């Protein structure tokens, strides 16, 4: 086989992308996997996994929230990382995946969890006291409607979100 052996460019002797970078696809793999488990119940109506639905979604959310941490630790200037959202370079996979992450976090996970927990949030906002009451009140977004029809609408919308979420999970993790 042709080629130079046993030589590395002098600048490449110190490897910059190592374990901190690898952690991100690992963690998003857990996120995507947990989400697919949840989607089995919601979209594919697999009754056997129904008890894991909420846990799977919360697992996905908690891991997604910590996924950027190793990346931030790896950066030379983590305080400049918002630049990726303000001036994303459209030819850069890293910048585009920053938006994929944001989409997945907000439009898929947070939305779906809110829809599923909304009834409990409204009830808790009415029964709890003190700071917790304020927190729950904010989370209701000012709407106390938990009528049967509104919950059916939530179900329907949640179904669509999960459906969109499955290809989004593929895009997040691959």
């Amino acid at each position, binding site marked *: 086989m042709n080629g130079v052996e046993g030589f590395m460019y002098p600048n490449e002797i110190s490897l910059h992308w190592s374990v901190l970078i690898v952690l991100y696809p690992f963690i998003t793999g857990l996120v995507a996997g947990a989400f697919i488990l949840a989607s089995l119940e919601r979209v594919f109506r697999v009754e056997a996994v129904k008890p894991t639905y909420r846990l799977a979604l919360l697992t996905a959310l908690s891991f997604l929230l910590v996924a950027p941490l190793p990346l931030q630790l790896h950066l030379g200037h983590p305080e400049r990382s*918002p630049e990726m*959202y*303000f*001036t994303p*370079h459209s030819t850069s996979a890293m910048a585009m995946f920053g938006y994929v992450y944001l989409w997945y976090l*907000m439009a898929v996970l947070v*939305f779906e969890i*809110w829809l599923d927990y*909304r009834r409990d949030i409204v009830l808790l906002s009415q029964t709890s006291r003190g700071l917790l009451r304020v927190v729950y009140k904010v989370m*209701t*977004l*000012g*709407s106390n*409607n938990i*009528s049967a*029809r*509104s919950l059916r*609408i939530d179900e329907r*919308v949640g179904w669509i979100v999960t459906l969109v979420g499955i290809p989004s999970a593929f895009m997040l993790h691959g």
Partner: protein
Amino acid sequence: MPPGRLGRMNYFKDAGHLFRFAALFVIAFLVFWAIRGYVVPRTFGQYGHYRAAAITEIAARSVQFAGHEACEVCHSDIAGAKSAGKHAHVNCEACHGPQTQHAADPTITPVKLDTTILCVRCHAASAARPKSFPQVNADEHANGVPCDTCHQPHSPAMDGSAAAAGDAK
């Protein structure tokens, strides 16, 4: 379920929380856009997807090597002797090191060079160097004697032309 206009009002009432959620997204986007307008540098995007002022800042960095033309302004006699010899294309600072400080303030004298270590950097014999390139084994050739004892560095050939040029060391 009440039909007609009342039914539509009921739908709006039952899906109201979704519109509030959507409104949250819109507000978040507007806040993002406002912050962006404030944070993104003014010159960004002027020539391309980068901060154009960076070009100016990089070009304004300080220079360490003055360049041979700067030396020749004052040292024209040496430049003349050099251009007649073998080191014609060796620039001044290649041996003398960075000299912008001296060029800006000639009272700052450059460090005297030690030819025992300087010359061998180029002229030490090595099978890796072209055969036509002048190279010697320093120990055998000079036996510890500094190179400028016999060679005039500005015109190093040993054919009497250096002595004839008569420039001082």
